[in-house]
């Protein structure tokens, strides 16, 4: 097996954590209540921690002397391969929770299966990240139910968040030659098996939250190929500012 596929997969995995972590970090100091502000920032820090391990490992696999920091801060927009879902703006609290929930419901079964990966390092990263992700999913599921089955206004607003974000969910399960090669070699689980677990989770939570999955068929994709929405440039200018303005600075 060539390392190229593993490297590209690790970038996807790491970029998902990195970009969502960066997005959530924007909530710091702006949470609806102090307790939730800290909860969101804790999740952001978990994600940045995951990104650090995954991207460091990606750098090792690539073998060109790039570490996690170099990969996180010094690539161009088209070289990031995170899901489009994760770069969408925070919106209101419901939008942020919905984005997080749709992702957590995918990440939990993914990490559960990656623990059995033939790649030892990836398996260890999955094992550590799974514990964090289980909590994230629990936290966001409860919020989806509270908001959906809450007041008339909270119900309408969380339904609207779902209506807006649902079209980004197909991309989560799209596969290409990278996934196929890794699955063939026992590094990656089959994504279609994870999709059925994901669907079960979101359907049962949405049923309890009394919100409905929209029926529109319009689906966005492109993140895995480095084709991003207009929001990505702004995220990167925040994320990369220090390294671009003061190359090689450390603190």
């Amino acid at each position, binding site marked *: 097996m060539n390392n190229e596929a593993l490297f590209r997969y690790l970038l996807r995995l790491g970029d998902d954590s990195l970009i969502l972590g960066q997005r959530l970090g924007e909530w710091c100091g702006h949470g609806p*209540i*102090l*307790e*939730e502000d*800290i*909860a969101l920032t*804790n999740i952001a820090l978990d994600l940045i921690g995951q990104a650090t391990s995954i991207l460091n490992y990606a750098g090792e696999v690539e073998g060109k002397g790039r570490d996690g920091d170099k990969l996180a801060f010094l690539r161009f927009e088209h070289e990031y391969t995170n899901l489009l879902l994760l770069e969408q703006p925070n919106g209101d609290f419901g939008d942020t929770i919905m984005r997080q929930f749709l992702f957590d419901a995918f990440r939990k079964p993914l990490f559960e299966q990656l623990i059995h990966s033939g790649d030892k390092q990836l398996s260890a990263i999955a094992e550590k990240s799974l514990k964090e992700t289980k*909590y994230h999913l*629990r*936290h966001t599921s*409860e919020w989806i139910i*509270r908001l959906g089955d809450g007041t008339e206004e909270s119900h309408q607003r969380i339904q609207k968040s779902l209506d807006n974000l649902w079209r980004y969910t197909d991309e989560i399960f799209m596969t290409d030659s990278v996934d196929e090669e890794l699955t063939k070699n026992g590094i990656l689980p089959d994504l279609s098996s994870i999709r059925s677990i994901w669907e079960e989770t979101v359907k049962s939570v949405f049923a309890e939250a009394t919100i409905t999955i929209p029926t529109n068929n319009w689906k966005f994709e492109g993140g895995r190929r480095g084709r991003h929405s207009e929001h990505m440039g702004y995220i990167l200018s925040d994320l990369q500012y220090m390294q671009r303005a003061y190359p090689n600075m450390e603190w």
Partner: protein
Amino acid sequence: MSATEWPLWEVFIRSKQGLNHKHVGSLRAADATMALENARDVYTRRSEGISIWVVESNYVHANDPSDSEEFFEPSDTKIYRHPTFYDVPDGVKHM
């Protein structure tokens, strides 16, 4: 406090097996589930605990500070209630 504000909860954390839960602070939450999660996020982020109790502050009853005289001072003069009048035999260790 406005009528729409969530109730206040008192948080107790057990730092390790065998120790008591200790009061660490309070927070606001809509119900017990949320209170436990908020406590986890606010009070255990630096590995402070392995078990959390939350109690709605309404249910904590406290003595009136103006009662201190009759509540606490009478025991100040009863030093015989402390076990300090025993001779400890030489053979006893770890006392």
